[in-house]
């Protein structure tokens, strides 16, 4: 099999080198050049020196955190109760279905719903709050981002709950644990890996949702992604954009490390 092995690894290895390793190295390389093509550390100096970039990074992480918490609070009970329904695979399919609708179309729908005379304001008027400015606020950004991420949080949590042996829950109840104790001491710890996977799947993209900050947030929220897009496609300052990109990559690695499963040596989890 040796000969064939080298034969079919060629395109794949080429892909690894050209589209995984090379672009990553290039983005790091580019971050050391200023807008005039001079080799310099000034991008990093600007980034860490001026409060603007650090504040933007902090804000972006803060928004991603809020989005993740909101998504988790909505998704965990959904996944839990979903796993107890009878046709759970069918229901799960219905949860996944909206993710197949193009993200831009969902954002576009909210432009209509949140507009001055839109459905959301009709509802506010109906319950006596009166019309509000909803579109182009921070709250609307968080709402729409959470809306988009919910299925990605439900899925891993659902799988974790589904894998859990029901006998453990029964044992806990038999031994006299209250519902809350069963949840906090048995169910939640056992499904923690699903929660971690969900947090990972929601938090990282939330740092880079530039289209939502533009369409829904009305540029009131600036995420790391918005800043990168701005530098690359609007101001054409690729060096600074790459520097922020490097920061985003570092943030990503940290999150993966914090939420990653620590694998025991030797045995591979299946």
């Amino acid at each position, binding site marked *: *099999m040796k*000969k064939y*092995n080298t034969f*079919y*690894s060629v*395109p*794949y*290895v080429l892909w*690894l080198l050209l*589209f*995984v*390793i*090379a*672009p*990553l190295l*290039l*983005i790091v390389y580019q971050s050391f050049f200023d807008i005039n093509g001079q080799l310099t550390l000034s991008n990093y100096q600007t980034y860490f020196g001026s409060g603007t970039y650090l504040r933007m990074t902090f804000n972006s992480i803060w928004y991603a955190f809020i989005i993740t918490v909101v998504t988790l609070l*909505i998704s965990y*009970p*959904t996944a839990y*109760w979903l796993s*107890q329904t009878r046709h759970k695979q069918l*229901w799960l*399919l*219905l949860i996944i*279905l909206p993710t*197949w*609708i*193009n*993200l*831009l*179309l*969902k*954002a*576009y*729908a909210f*432009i*209509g*719903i949140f*507009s001055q*005379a*839109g459905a959301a304001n009709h509802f506010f008027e109906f319950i006596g709050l009166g019309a509000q400015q909803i579109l182009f606020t921070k709250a609307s950004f968080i709402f729409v981002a959470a*809306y988009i991420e*919910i299925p990605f949080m439900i899925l891993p949590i659902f799988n974790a709950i589904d894998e859990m042996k029901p006998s453990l829950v029964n044992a806990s109840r038999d031994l006299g644990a209250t519902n809350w104790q069963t949840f906090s001491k048995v169910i939640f710890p056992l499904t923690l890996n699903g929660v971690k996977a969900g947090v*990972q799947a929601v938090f*990282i*993209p939330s*740092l*880079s949702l530039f*289209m939502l900050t*533009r*369409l829904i947030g009305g540029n009131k929220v600036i995420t790391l992604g918005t800043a990168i897009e701005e530098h*690359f496609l609007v101001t054409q300052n*690729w060096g600074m*954009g*790459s520097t922020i*990109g490097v920061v*985003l990559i570092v943030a*990503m690695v940290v999150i*993966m490390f914090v939420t990653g499963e620590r694998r025991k040596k030797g045995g591979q989890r299946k």
Partner: protein
Amino acid sequence: MKRKWYDWRHVYLWLVFLLLYAPIFYLIFYSFNQGTTMTHFSGFSWQHYAELFADTRMIEIVLDTLLIALLSSLIATIIGTLGALAIYGIKKVWLKNSILSLNNILMVSPDVIIGASFLIFFTFLGLRLGFSSVLLSHIAFSIPIVVLMVLPRLSEMNHSLIDAATDLGATNFQVLTHVIFPFITPGILTGYFMAFTYSLDDFAVTFFVTGNGFETLSVEIYARARQGISLEVNALSALMFLFSLLLIGGYYFIEQYNNSKKARRRNRTEARLIK
């Protein structure tokens, strides 16, 4: 026992489903609006669908998007399947694990990072931005998902099957086409399918590498959404929703087919054992 239908847990689930689907149906509902806003429904009409089908530019973009999705997922499936075979053949555990980690980089990277780094890469190579850069990017970000779908099937495969085939005098190529491929086909199909939907769904990466001349559907919708409401986009979203339903139906069918095949095979072996 309480009556299940009044259970507040079900109420919660229904609310979540309502939240998930309301915006989509809102879009579709207003695609039939006689007027031009997404706020006042003034009467039923097909006019926005007529506009959509008369819009040759939009139709061209739809066809381009489908072409990119079909081509990129096909090529990604070929490279990804070969890659999975190569990874499967690696004996050293550390090497296998490091290649798998490299494989997953594009799966976990934020879209903007992939987009920006590909943009630098293509500019560095001097490649003109347009159809080819978009196609290459879509192939690149779809390969890892194909590997991840095919690899488990390969590991599930019983190695004695291969040994038996070689003992019976099959060449390497025959082993590949007659033993390995039939076994991993479900994984390959799922991989192709995922790659296809990844490509259709992508906005951010395409937005970075598309340049000026070439557009996919997501980029076009973004451009139109920034200008405000146009009910043609609603009509388009209704059609895309139907298309997704068809795709998911197709996916469901593949899964059912795989399962029933597996079940049939199991029944056959059991029957043989009983005999």
